[in-house]
């Protein structure tokens, strides 16, 4: 799907993201104009900032970390010891907060939420999806994680423990999903294509090898 943001064009909004009640949208636009006029930042700095935010994407950032962890035992050990340092060693900025890698195993499935707001490893995964910030996800995943995961098509076997991690301003998480079966001998680039944003939040599994 292509998006042309120069023409009026709006997608249907989710319930937690209603049509802007115009006064707050206007407030945001007004604030931006005034800050530029007062020289707090320039229009060019705003454009660069948006580009910088949007240059972080799952394929070039988070997925590379997971694929490397699947391939390289030394990297996995480093990731366990100090995730931020290990991520930096790949040339990826881990962000300004603590970061912790949560490894899924055949016995344990990890899933991440921020019940109080929207704390998220934006430096690894980009902007959080709308559902991550929604009331429904934040309210329910801590109480009935299996039911919420099932809504993502992810049925967790009853003998697998589900651990829910509540992010905060100082500590963010990235889930290392289970390596899909049948990927022996694959390269990091091939493996990275199986790693999705949702699998690193923990709501889904990595893609199956056949899906690549």
């Amino acid at each position, binding site marked *: 799907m292509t998006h042309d943001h120069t023409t009026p064009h709006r997608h249907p909004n989710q319930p937690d993201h209603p049509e802007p009640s115009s006064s707050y949208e206007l407030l945001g636009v007004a*604030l931006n104009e*005034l800050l530029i006029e007062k020289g*707090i930042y320039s229009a060019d700095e705003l454009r660069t900032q948006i580009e910088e935010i949007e240059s972080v994407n799952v394929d070039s950032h988070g997925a590379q970390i997971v694929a490397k962890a699947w391939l390289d035992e030394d990297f996995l050990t480093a990731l366990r010891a100090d995730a931020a340092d290990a991520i930096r060693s790949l040339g990826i900025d881990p962000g300004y907060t603590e970061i912790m890698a949560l490894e899924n195993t055949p016995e344990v499935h990890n899933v991440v939420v921020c019940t*109080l707001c929207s704390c998220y490893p934006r430096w690894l995964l980009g902007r959080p*999806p*709308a559902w991550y910030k929604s009331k429904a996800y934040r309210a*329910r995943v801590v109480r009935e994680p299996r039911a919420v995961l099932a*809504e993502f098509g992810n049925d967790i076997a009853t003998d697998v423990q589900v651990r829910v991690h509540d992010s905060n301003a100082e500590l963010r998480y990235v889930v290392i999903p289970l390596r899909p079966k049948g990927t022996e001998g694959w390269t990091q680039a091939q493996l990275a294509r199986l790693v999705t944003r949702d699998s690193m939040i923990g709501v889904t599994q990595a893609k199956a090898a056949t899906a690549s």
Partner: protein
Amino acid sequence: MTSGETPRIGPHDFAGLDAGPVDTSQHDLAQWERVVDAIIYLLGKKGVMKDVAEFRRHIEDLGPDVYERLSYYERWAASAAATCVEAGVVTREELDARAAEIAKRSEAS
């Protein structure tokens, strides 16, 4: 944990509340949302906003009714504006006047 067992710490504390199914569809941001998103980063870089705690405090101070009524980036716009007013960078009057002007501009176009 179920709702009622642990007191909520504020309007933003959704943990354990009752809620409907999760809408897992994607949502593309409108341009004004991308701008508001970037403003928060720039306010931090330029030292207008001291830290993220200040930004969150202004969101949590919206109160339960406003918090639940506003969309995500509407809350951010409200918080960014409150931060700038508190820092003395803009006044409420300037914001109101400019917002009215923009509304008039978009009506005319």
